[in-house]
């Protein structure tokens, strides 16, 4: 327990004072912790095992393939024309492009189950464009970071999949249950972006007024992205491929579109491959670090002990729920969401069931609270991805912006707590 806490303190020092890359910092603290708790031999051997394990994990292959899709779009100018259209339509509204980006994230979340893949794809599509329209980095980077967390809230979702398999709940019901909260959350993100620009107009400058005719003329600019999206969506929902394969299909369609429209040069293709590789290895290094840190925290039994302690608190059921959510929020800050989920569900789930709460509701609420962890430091993988993809945007800028969006999560959480129907209404139609 104490050693776990100490580990986190050291982690923060390494990251903040030594400028150690975050993935490496987590990996080093994890390795050091294992060294202390096991034997040096065992710790170093675990390191070798874990690195090979993470690097060769099938579920993670979706990341490079979706990034490749985003990069091909970027180098064939698909996102440029898309944002020209968006700007013609929403540019006059303050923060309009941020809202458009959040909506695009929500749409992308419907085809992709992972928030890192969403973050990487949307950063390559949206960030350069928002920069062009003079959006402040705090606003542009944070809208993408929080928008990408929708990747696991809006189905398909890795978190709900793991929860469903673990607790023997219907995946279908969980997916439906998370849909409405996901839509609500997207709406609140848009509202936040708008309000931010009301108070800080210089963050998302409004553009010229455009006529209806200009708007209509601009529509074809969104055409390519729309077709790409529709193709991926269709294939996924018709069952041509599994969620993990959707990335490959997306990259393929993007390539074909770029070639048909003669917008992708060979040079552009090479550049998109190289960028994809760079971003992939950056993300996988962070994931690896998070996994090794997670192993250390697991062996320190800190997560188990905290969970056991809370589960045994002699207080009202709703207080226990609040405590559990609080724990997940804190855990989301220091651990990878899935890692803590795996450790804690066997402990919390029976407790919550015994108190008579609905398992689908609890799953959706956990999904909401853990997803927030993906943008909160020190282990905020989505924020890292956005910051890592643009040299000019330091992590601090992203995190500053993210803070403004946190109330949106809390509002949806409170709504779900007080009106469980928010999560349970749609699943009630599923047989």
């Amino acid at each position, binding site marked *: 327990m104490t050693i776990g806490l100490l580990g986190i303190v050291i982690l923060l020092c390494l*990251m903040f004072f030594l400028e150690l890359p975050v993935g490496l910092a987590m990996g080093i603290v994890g390795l050091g912790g294992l060294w202390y708790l096991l034997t040096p031999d065992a710790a170093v051997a675990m390191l*070798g095992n874990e690195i090979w394990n993470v690097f060769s994990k099938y579920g993670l292959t979706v990341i490079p393939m979706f990034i490749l899709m985003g990069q091909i779009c970027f180098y064939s100018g698909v996102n440029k024309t898309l944002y020209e259209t968006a700007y013609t339509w929403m540019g006059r509204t303050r923060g309009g492009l941020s809202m458009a980006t959040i909506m695009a994230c929500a749409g992308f979340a419907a085809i992709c189950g992972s928030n890192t893949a969403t973050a990487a794809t949307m950063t390559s599509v949206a960030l350069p464009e928002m920069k062009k329209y003079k959006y402040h980095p705090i606003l542009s980077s944070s809208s993408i970071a929080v928008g990408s967390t929708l990747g696991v809230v809006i189905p398909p979702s890795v978190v709900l999949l793991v929860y469903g398999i673990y607790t023997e709940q219907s995946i279908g019901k969980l997916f439906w249950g998370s849909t409405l909260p996901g839509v609500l959350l997207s709406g609140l993100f848009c509202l936040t972006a708008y309000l931010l620009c009301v108070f800080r107009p210089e963050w998302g400058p409004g553009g010229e007024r455009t006529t209806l005719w200009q708007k209509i003329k601009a529509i074809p600019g969104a055409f390519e992205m729309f077709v790409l999206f529709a193709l991926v969506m269709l294939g996924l929902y018709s069952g041509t491929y599994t969620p993990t394969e959707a990335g490959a299909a997306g990259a393929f369609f993007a390539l074909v579109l770029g070639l048909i429209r003669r917008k992708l040069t060979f040079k552009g293709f090479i550049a998109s491959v190289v960028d994809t590789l760079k971003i992939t290895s950056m993300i996988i290094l962070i994931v690896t670090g998070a996994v090794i840190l997670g192993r250390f925290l697991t062996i320190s039994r800190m997560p188990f002990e905290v969970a056991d302690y809370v589960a045994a608190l002699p207080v009202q059921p709703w207080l226990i729920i609040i405590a559990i959510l609080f724990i997940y929020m804190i855990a989301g800050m220091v651990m990878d969401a899935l890692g803590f989920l795996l450790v804690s569900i066997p402990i919390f789930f029976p407790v919550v069931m015994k108190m008579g709460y609905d398992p689908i509701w609890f799953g959706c609420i956990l999904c909401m609270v853990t997803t927030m962890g993906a943008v909160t430091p020190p282990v905020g993988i989505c924020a890292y991805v956005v910051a890592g993809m643009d040299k000019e945007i*330091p992590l601090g800028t992203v995190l500053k912006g993210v803070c403004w969006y946190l109330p949106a999560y809390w509002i949806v959480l409170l709504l779900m707590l007080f009106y469980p129907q928010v999560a349970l209404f749609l699943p009630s139609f599923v047989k």
Partner: protein
Amino acid sequence: MGLLKKINEWLSDVFVWIGGIALVVMTAVSCINMGLRMMGFPMAGIYDLVCYLGALVAALPLAYTQLKKGHVAVDIISLLLPATVRKIGIGISYVLGMAFFGAAAWKVGSLAGILRASGEVSETLKMPFWPFTYAVAASCALMVFCLLLDVLTMFESSQGGEK
């Protein structure tokens, strides 16, 4: 020093090229598999191959990404420190990174050795996959080399500053 840097850049480029080929092959193989499955001829083993190609895609560009300073780090607080202190901090972080990747290269390499000697093959395709494991080990080793050069560069530039 200049030669070492050249070697490092050349090696990183070679690794990235192989990684790029792996990425293209991985995407193509997944698409071909989807196509064949639609036509009723699924290839069951493809998923093994995609995992191992994925390992190349993630590992081989590690050093190249370091060379381009693409691994995300936090400088909010360290920027407030005096320049020398900050520099020492970064130096320590390079050394820690070298230790980490050195251990990683060694252990992933010995895992590859174990896989090779034991005759373990992939689950469905039944193909030996230790070469991929060695490639990951080599990528970690190149990371050590890359970080070593970063440290040397730091010394070089600080000596230059004193003159």
